[in-house]
């Protein structure tokens, strides 16, 4: 997609598709698959809902590939850890798709402790004419069977079924915060606060610990791992971010245990902005490689940073997401919002980055034109098929008509999870228990 048309679209022309209200539960993760045909959401209740894009139809060109529910299944159930007398939440923390290799779709979904591989397949035929049982499934009396027949496949209504093909469990003492599929399509990593484990997709009773930052004495613990991701092309490289604002790039070829990093990315702290909250707001909540594999993007509480993999001492770009919150850190600390973990995402061409904020706002930054826009995901403020209006937060002084003042922001409405279609300008944004899908307008 051309950069020029990208920037034009960002500015003012996002068409709002109808929104899907997922009823009971708060959406905890959203992810497009590698072709963009499917969109998966996970929620706090352990369910996964998969949407599929409609085939574009010539008769209704304005309904350009809308997303409809394709499959819904219960991925994880709440569990009880008897040893610690603690509940294990069924909330889906992350979903990652595997690239499609046959007619079925595969995805990995994880809660705090267990990763599962799900196969989603279609069934549109069923066998009829069994010998030993009749059509209702009742066993036939063998003495009544006088001849044999070959069962025949008959068409039936399309059924989409999800089956758990692998369950990768008992490898994490702490809470899993991320999973990442390797470009070799044979392995994946699961990451908790202190460890990164490498799995083979075929083997569930063994995993290989490749990063372990647990100190011998837990009292010395000052830093945890917040996210990890494989490099999109180099199957031996992965990166993990920390609660202290640093990113480590590791090469699995160097050693079995990747405690020594290859590269260490950290920006020195600006002493002028130091406060009691400096460390908390420097904690990285998400790390994403660019599609071309040359850059890393990190999200901390107030900014999004783009790092060139060749330069470790500072990011090449820093974008302020909601700097007006800097003066409110104390209140945000008190109401715990300062611990919110926002995700960030690249568009298909790596020219635009997007991340969420409060008040159901989300922000997009064009890396080339340096222009940015704030948009809102809410039913009240936009009608279906209307173009989203850019929003603005007033930071002091006179508030203009359409602006919203910092004190009026609703901090309970946070957009933590967003995803971008791999090729097109289609984004999915989770606002608490609502899913919004936006597309660029049809020209």
């Amino acid at each position, binding site marked *: 997609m051309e950069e020029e048309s990208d920037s034009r679209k960002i500015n003012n022309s996002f068409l709002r598709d109808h929104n899907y209200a997922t009823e009971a539960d708060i959406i905890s993760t959203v992810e497009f698959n590698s072709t963009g045909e499917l969109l998966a959401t996970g929620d706090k209740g352990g369910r996964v809902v998969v949407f599929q894009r409609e085939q574009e139809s010539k008769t209704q060109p304005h309904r350009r590939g809308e997303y409809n529910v394709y499959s819904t299944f219960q991925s994880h159930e709440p569990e009880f850890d008897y040893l*610690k*007398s603690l509940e294990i939440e069924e909330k889906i923390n992350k979903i990652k798709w595997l690239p499609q290799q046959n007619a079925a779709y595969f995805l990995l979904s994880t809660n705090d402790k267990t990763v599962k591989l799900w196969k989603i397949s279609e069934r549109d035929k069923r066998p009829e004419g069994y010998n030993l049982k009749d059509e209702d499934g009742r066993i036939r009396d063998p003495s009544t069977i006088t001849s044999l027949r070959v069962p025949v496949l008959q068409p039936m209504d399309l059924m989409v079924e999800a089956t758990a093909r692998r369950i990768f469990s008992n490898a994490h003492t702490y809470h899993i915060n991320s999973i990442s599929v390797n470009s070799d399509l044979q392995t994946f990593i699961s990451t908790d606060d202190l460890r990164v484990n490498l799995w083979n997709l075929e083997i569930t009773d063994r995993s290989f610990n490749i990063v372990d930052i647990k100190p011998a004495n837990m*009292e010395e613990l000052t830093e945890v791992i917040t996210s990890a991701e494989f490099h999109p092309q180099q199957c031996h490289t992965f990166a993990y971010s920390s609660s202290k604002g640093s990113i480590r790039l590791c090469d699995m070829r160097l050693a079995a245990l990747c405690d020594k990093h290859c590269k260490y990315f950290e920006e020195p702290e600006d002493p002028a902005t130091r406060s009691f909250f400096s460390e908390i707001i420097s904690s990285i909540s998400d790390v994403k490689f660019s599609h071309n594999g040359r850059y890393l993007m990190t999200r901390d509480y107030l900014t999004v940073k783009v790092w060139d993999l060749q330069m470790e001492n500072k990011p090449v770009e820093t974008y302020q997401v909601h700097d007006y919150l800097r003066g409110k*850190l*104390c209140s945000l600390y008190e109401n715990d919002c300062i611990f919110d973990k926002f995700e960030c995402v690249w568009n298909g061409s790596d020219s635009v980055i997007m991340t969420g904020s409060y008040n159901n706002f989300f922000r997009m930054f064009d890396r080339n034109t340096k222009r940015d826009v704030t948009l809102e995901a809410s039913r009240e403020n936009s009608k279906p098929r209307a173009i989203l209006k850019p929003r603005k937060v007033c930071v002091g002084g006179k508030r203009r008509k359409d602006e919203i003042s910092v004190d009026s922001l609703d901090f309970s409405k946070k957009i933590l999870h967003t995803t971008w279609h791999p090729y097109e300008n289609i984004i999915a944004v989770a606002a608490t228990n609502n899913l919004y899908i936006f597309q660029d307008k049809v020209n």
Partner: protein
Amino acid sequence: MLGRGVKRKWSCLEELELLPGAAVPEEKRQNLAAGGGHDPSMSRLQQRQLVLSLCVEKLQHYQAGVELSLRRSVLLINTLRQIQEEMRSDGTGTCTPEVLLHGVDPDSYLLTDDMSVTCSGCAEGDMESLSLSPPASPEPASQDAEQQKPLPTAVSNTLSDAGSAGGYLSDLALDDIFEDIDTSMYESSDLLSAWAAGSLWPVTSSLWWDEDMKLRPAGHSSAGSLQSCLMDLNELDHIMEVLVKS
């Protein structure tokens, strides 16, 4: 076994009232909080005090049966450490033992810790091994399943953590604190005397699960040296209030 509350001396109370910001009342706290980081009306000292009390409150508050987020706990503790460092370099604060232990009910710690950390109700025979035994770990499948570790009680977990917490909060003048206190009741139990000798702040005990905590030597590495307490009197009082939920 309930702790016998130690009565605060009147002079101590007077001191508290004289100190600015003593037992920060709710509305004042809200004003401070609303002021945010750059509010000129809130001095750095006031903000520090507020953040400190919030820190402790957050560390102590948890839902029973729900595991704490390690990331959040680590960030809170690091903030607490940072404030303590600053206070130490400022040279502020002395505490009196009476204030520190006002209304302290050791059982309240143990009970609340119990909820979030270990399986409840496990009993052990040997008292000494109790204080030393590590929690049985939820070992990953790859580890040796035959390695049996005795199940701890909540108390022992608190202790072993408290003992090691002593290393973490070693600057608290623990000997100093306990000088004036009549611990005859505590001494009747090995457990509680060990607890009393350890850190007063079982802050880390409930915060994270140490799956392979090793046996610790009986002599806890708690602070032996006399150093001045880090907390201001008024902060301590507030903290005590929070902890005891009086």
